[in-house]
């Protein structure tokens, strides 16, 4: 499902961030959404990031995906410095190598589940074969919903379609921003299982943002974001049940 189907070299740097900041003005106050963050993610990592609401998790994920630019600092994705890429190159990088899953309903309401999955082909390296799109939907357990519109799907089913869509262009990096935020526990577990499978069986590099420390345990590496700053949480990685927000 990933471009290299797990055969890419292990430990190759996928994300390399050096001292990035994202500050913006809100009234008279300067908000430090991301503050002096450095991070290196290697190929095949499954990194989970937890933190309170407003701690800067989504902003960090958006910076990594090139959806916004840092106020200061340096970001390299697949050894490409984002600040040096123009819109076309950055868009191509997103289209071909990065998949996004959002917390909110992000499907195009006028397209069927199948066409939503085929949609990234419009911006990637070519049309997504309907059969491949159907296989992806089948993999996320929606083989019977190919021709349903988003309004005919439950929240969990929509998230599955969004996950299938994120994989349509065979990305090397998956950025998931609270993909299970609005789902029940059972569906949440199913989605996380799919992500774990992707990482374990396909070697896909995954960055998962979640507010749920239980879900963070699915990752191989856990980071905590607090007031725009990022710290490593070894306790979670060691599977010790300690409170995240201490």
């Amino acid at each position: 499902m990933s471009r290299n189907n797990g055969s890419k070299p292990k430990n190759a740097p996928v994300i390399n961030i050096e001292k990035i900041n994202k500050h913006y003005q809100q009234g008279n106050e300067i908000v430090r959404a991301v503050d002096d963050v450095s991070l290196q993610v290697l190929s095949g990592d499954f990194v989970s990031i937890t933190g309170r609401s407003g701690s800067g998790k989504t902003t960090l994920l958006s910076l990594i995906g090139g959806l916004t630019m840092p106020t200061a600092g340096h970001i390299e994705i697949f050894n490409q410095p984002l600040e040096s890429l123009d819109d076309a190159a950055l868009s191509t990088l997103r289209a071909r190598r990065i998949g996004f899953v959002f917390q909110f309903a992000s499907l195009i309401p006028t397209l069927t589940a199948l066409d939503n999955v085929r949609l990234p082909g419009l911006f990637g390296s070519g049309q997504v074969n309907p059969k491949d799109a159907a296989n992806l939907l089948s993999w996320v357990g929606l083989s019977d919903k190919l021709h349903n519109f988003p309004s005919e799907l439950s929240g969990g089913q929509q998230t599955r379609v969004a996950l299938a869509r994120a994989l349509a262009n065979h990305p090397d990096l998956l950025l998931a921003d609270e993909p299970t935020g609005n789902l029940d526990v059972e569906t949440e577990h199913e989605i996380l299982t799919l992500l774990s499978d992707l990482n374990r069986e396909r070697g896909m590099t995954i960055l998962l943002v979640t507010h749920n420390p239980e879900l963070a345990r699915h990752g191989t590496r856990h980071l905590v974001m607090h007031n725009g700053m990022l710290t490593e949480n070894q306790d979670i990685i060691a599977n010790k049940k300690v409170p995240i927000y201490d």
Partner: protein
Amino acid sequence: MKEITLYTLALQNLRRKPYRAVVIGLCVAVATGSLFAATIVLRGVQHSLTVGRARLGADLIVVPIGHEVPAQEAFITGQPSTFYMPDDIKEIITALPGVQQTSTQVFIETLSNASCCIGEFFLVGFEPETDFTISPWLATHLDGEALGPFDIIVGDRILLREDETVIFYGTAFNVVGVLEKTGMGIDRTIYVPMEGMRTMIADSSELAEKTLTVAPEEISSILVSVAPNADILDVAERIEANLDNAKVFTAAQLNQAVGNQLQGVLGVTFGVTIAMWLMSLLTIGLVFSLTVNERQRELGILRAMGAQRQAIFRLVMGEAGLFTGLGGLVGLASAAILLAGFSRLIQLRLHIPYLLPNWFEIVGISFLLLVLSLLTGALASLHPALSSSKMEPYAAIRQGE
């Protein structure tokens, strides 16, 4: 299975808000249709005048003083009008320098119960031996045969065809030719050789229910052909200077008369159409700003999927193009149907000469107006398209929260 393209997305979005799509489409349809109708009518009038003037063939028309307006009305719309002046004027005019040829005409109105037609029609007595207005037509269509005194030529809108016999004021005439359509008064005119006309006038007291009282030495108009090296206006001035009881107008003044007649109507029509167009532009611009604003998150997600700025720009512009293009097509089709159905009524109500422009021109006008409607969409959606394409994907996604 069909490929997914920006066009597919634009089309799907059009279906998302059908009411909005219909309102925008109608705005454009009304504006495009009105402009199409106004342009076709204007071009129809110009076409008719061109054809009519060519058929008329005269450079100058001399009528009794005080009768210029009804005379022009008669030539333009075929509205029957009767006025007379002595025929010795012809000799004076013919003798003037710059005058190449002259031919006289006598105007008579048919009775409303004439066997040929419903309502009153225009009977014009002409001199086959000097006529240069319909003679070229006669030479072509009568194979050089001389026109008999009771052989008549009829305009296209007269319900008579070749070889039919018709009686006016008790005198029988044979139809030997039908003139091609001009959209002008010629279409509603019956041309009778002067000899037959004089006989009909003389016999009317015995044969008709109404006696014609036109004296043998009376004529209604003199058509003048100016010599190739002479100035038309100079000759016109010379004629007026030599005659006390006649007035001269040029063929170009016929156009002027129509222009004056139409100026008010067409001015208001074009003014209203332009106002409608501006309203459409503002409405579409407003609706598209709202639409794009509502869909910021969706556009941000497309950017996250790898859509370039120009793809977002093209998507928004494409949607506008679809809205306005389809609206334009509907407007053109509706206006064409209405024009085809009501052209005669328009002509009668406005008292204008009207001849449908040729199909090449109609297609050209339609194409230009379709382009104009697409440009309207492009212009109206330019700002929302630019602003949404320039927006940072993260900001676009957050804006929808």
